[in-house]
């Protein structure tokens, strides 16, 4: 501190008596305007977002975290969807086997599988238990997958392909595709009735 002269003390005392102009509100409006620009009321000076010390990452993490999770879920969903659609496309590239076979199986107008019993000469159904059903038949009878175009191939694709291959490699035509033979002759008369045998009394 310095040694003030007498006149300097007088000046200081006089300045302390100075009436300040009433610009209270006008000045506060300017201050408030500047504060609203620099640090709006919802801004908390403690919330420095990048400051780990103040937990900034934790505070912003709850906002960013769910968004990141949603993005990850959507991404995984689309990746899986793409993986599912690719095998389906390959299946669609081979629709001939499945689509041509299926109507034959499902067609109710097609004649049932039959055969002629060589002993009796009667027409019998092949599904009477004497002729076992083929694997392809059993699969087609089940009809589990063919009518469903989009199926997870990771679990069902082998099931679809297997019957198609077996069906195409099976050499003999299906019995139901062969028209049943008409029985010749009069009903109730068999070959036995035409068989001529020597009787004991006719022998000389």
């Amino acid at each position, binding site marked *: 501190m310095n040694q003030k002269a007498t006149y300097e003390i007088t*000046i200081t005392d006089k300045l302390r008596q100075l009436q*300040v102009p009433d610009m209270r509100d006008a000045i506060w409006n300017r*201050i408030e305007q500047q504060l609203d620009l620099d640090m709006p009321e919802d801004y908390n000076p403690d919330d420095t977002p990048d400051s780990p010390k103040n937990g900034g990452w934790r505070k912003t993490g709850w906002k960013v975290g769910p968004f990141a999770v949603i993005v990850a879920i959507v991404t995984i969903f689309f990746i899986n969807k793409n993986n599912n659609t690719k095998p389906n496309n390959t299946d669609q590239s081979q629709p001939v086997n499945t689509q041509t076979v299926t109507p034959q199986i499902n067609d109710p107008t097609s004649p049932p599988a039959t055969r002629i019993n060589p002993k009796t000469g009667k027409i019998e159904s092949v599904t009477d238990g004497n002729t076992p059903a083929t694997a392809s038949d059993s699969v087609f009878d089940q009809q589990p997958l063919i009518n469903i175009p989009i199926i997870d191939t990771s679990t069902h694709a082998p099931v679809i392909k297997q019957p198609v291959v077996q069906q195409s490699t099976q050499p003999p035509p299906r019995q139901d595709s062969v028209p049943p033979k008409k029985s010749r002759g009069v009903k109730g008369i068999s070959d036995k009735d035409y068989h001529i045998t020597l009787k004991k009394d006719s022998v000389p």
Partner: protein
Amino acid sequence: MIAVANDIDLLQGCIANDRKVQKLLYEQFYEFAMTVAMRYSRDEMDAADIMSHAFVKVFKSIKSYDSTKGSLHAWIKRIVVNEGLDHIKSRERFSENVELETVDEPPINNSVLEEMGAEEIMELIAKLPPATHAVFVLYAVEGYNHREIAEKLGISEGTSKWHLSEARKTLQKQLAHLR
């Protein structure tokens, strides 16, 4: 009538950026801070500029206030004085070309000053050149010595002494005319 709030409550509210509490603190310190601001200004508009800038700084940096190092009054006063000096510096550069070893002390008639009103004395001081005005107020009114003034203004002690001598000579001449 403005309710006088506890300094601690005011500080906590201001740190939380509560606008109402900030206004309360401003209202509480308005007259005191405005009196200081007017010493460094030519008119009321200058003082208003100093006040608004100073209080924005107060609210922005209030978190750094340390009550163990001084009162809130002293802290706010320091900010207002620094803002006043910045305001003067923006009007005039402090010349380093003029220095004095010792300050001239021309005789000033104290009886004339005592008869003058506060506003008249304020006008006399405001007529001083800005740099001389700042040094005179810092030395004669605020009570700083030349070393402290030199640090505050970034000038040499000799330059501070020269500005004080110039202020005294100018005031002496003006008071002689009033006599």
